[in-house]
């Protein structure tokens, strides 16, 4: 279902020879099947971007007894997705809309100022730089990624935050912005459930059941927050934000954030 709509849109575009076709880079437009392979690879958990080192504040929420069982987990996941939607989707959207270096630098610097929580900020930069490294090695046909990496590696002016990098890569491989935004929500959700499983909060099967249950909510939130400008980015879970900041205070911990 997730990959269904963009495909049909694409093929429609293709058949009608619509002039808006130009939005889709030529390397991906004609070959829908190859776009699928790319899409799935970007979403696949085997892509070594280090997302599983992060619990998105779940571990801190557990240690402060904010999340104790499956019902709490469901509410937590939905809040994290809501917050991701309102705070980070605008960055994914803007980066995927105009995937070029200048715009990306601007977004990255803005996100650096926007993520005021140090734990979340570090998680974002470590995932973002890992993703860029992986993408530059995997999608070798995209020259921009190599150039970007070469130009800014070691630079003090950019931090390689996750959301803009993700949007940028999605834009470069030819995703439309809606797919990019949905994919970002999916990746976030996947990582939280993975963390919940490893924190022994929920079993793997139950996690999959819950993931499927939450999917319609995630879709609703994606629709609610999609296609917004970065000036509208705001956080909607101040309590979880305060909690996530406590991550570094925990004596024993499994995750980086």
């Amino acid at each position, binding site marked *: 279902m997730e990959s269904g709509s963009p495909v049909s849109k694409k093929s429609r575009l293709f058949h009608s020879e619509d002039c808006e076709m130009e939005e889709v880079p030529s390397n991906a437009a004609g070959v829908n099947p190859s776009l699928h392979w790319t899409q799935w690879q970007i979403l696949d958990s085997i892509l070594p971007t280090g997302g599983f080192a992060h619990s998105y504040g779940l571990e801190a929420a*557990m*240690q402060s*007894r904010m999340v104790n069982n499956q019902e709490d987990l469901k509410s937590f996941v939905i809040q994290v997705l809501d917050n991701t939607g309102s705070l980070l989707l605008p960055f994914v959207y803007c980066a995927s809309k105009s995937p070029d270096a200048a715009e990306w630098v601007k977004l990255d610097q803005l996100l650096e100022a*926007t993520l005021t929580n140090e734990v979340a900020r570090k998680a974002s930069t470590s995932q973002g730089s890992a993703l860029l490294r992986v993408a530059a090695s995997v999608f070798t046909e995209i020259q921009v990624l190599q150039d970007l990496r070469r130009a800014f590696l070691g630079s003090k002016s950019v931090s390689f935050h996750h959301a803009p990098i993700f949007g940028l890569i999605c834009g470069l491989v030819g995703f439309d912005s809606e797919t990019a935004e949905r994919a970002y929500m999916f990746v976030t959700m996947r990582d939280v459930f993975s963390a919940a499983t490893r924190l022994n909060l929920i079993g793997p099967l139950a996690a999959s059941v819950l993931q499927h249950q939450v999917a319609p909510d995630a879709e609703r939130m994606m629709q609610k927050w999609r296609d917004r400008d970065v000036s509208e980015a*705001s956080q909607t879970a101040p309590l979880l934000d305060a909690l996530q900041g406590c991550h570094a*205070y925990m*004596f024993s911990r499994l995750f980086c954030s």
Partner: protein
Amino acid sequence: MAEAATGAVRVERVRGRSVLTRCFARYPLKLIAPSKVGPSSCNAVWLYALTYGGGIVSVSPEDLPPLSILSVLARCAVAGYSRLGVGEGCCSVTCSWCRARARPCRGTPYRARSASATGARRRSPRRPRPRYAGCLMKLDSALPAYTYTMAVLCGLVMLTRVCRMVYKAVGSKCSEQLLEARVGEDALLAVIPDPVTCFSTARYHQKQVFQVSANSNLVVVDWFTSGRYESGEKWDFSFYKSVNHIFLGDQPLFIDSTLLEQGSNYSIAERMHEYNVIAMIVLLGPKLRHIQDKMQDEVKKLMSGQLRPPTSGGSLYTMRSKPPQRPQRPPLVASCSPFGRTGTGMVARVAAVSTELAYSFLRHHLAALEMFLGASPYAAS
């Protein structure tokens, strides 16, 4: 929306003292600059911002009742230091209340009280008293240790007592408030308000923009409560948005925007659990370094004692065998994070079960500001 400023303030260094060189306010805002907030050795200007009418409402100022009621809406503190000369190191603040951009209370929550409510009588809108809870504007302080500096401080405290006056609601637009401040080199600005309290169905939007220089010092406390939670009105407002931007030149240094809106999967009350207060404290600048460090250490100590892995409490099996009992959550959650490329700033986020807890947290951690301000923030409240 709020193009025309309702108030404007400027504090400059004149012969070594912080002086309020401009102070303009227009109905419904009133600014008061008491001269005796701290000891005379202290070089800070305090400024209280009040509004007529007791709150932010949905009607425009022309429609407000006559000026019979004065209540304090805001407190703001701005401090500016300048190394040399007059005119540099000044702070200016403008604030505007977007004319009554709306307060929906459909079927005014207070109407009902005349009938039954016993305890409600005490809160009757009839004779509101001036409330000075939130207003304190302090202008500048020069530390004895820094003889060359001068500071202007002005604080703006905002309380939204929207529904108390039972104004008629107009449409469903938002009450808005905007504060813009420029903090000069070596200046200190402290904005130390009391919390915003949004009543049931209220819609509120505030925006604060600070322009700072490399050596500016800034204290911002931005906080809000769940409403009049002691009478059961918890997280019942419809919309709350608070935006705080700090720019260093044209570079964004701190971009914060908090949005709470009813209508998501979970209501605000469900999302907040038993917490009633959310606070943010920003400390920026070289003069506040020691306060930042101390706060970070203390918060770390405080919180690490509260956090521990659940002793298999999270697993399915214990859940099944024991009746689910709500484990105790910490009454106050706080965390500190540095921000800015060079780590000159620090932000603390706090969630607390009660306003008193949050007040005592602020009082304790900001007490060291007394050396700059001449009095410690939140001391008497």
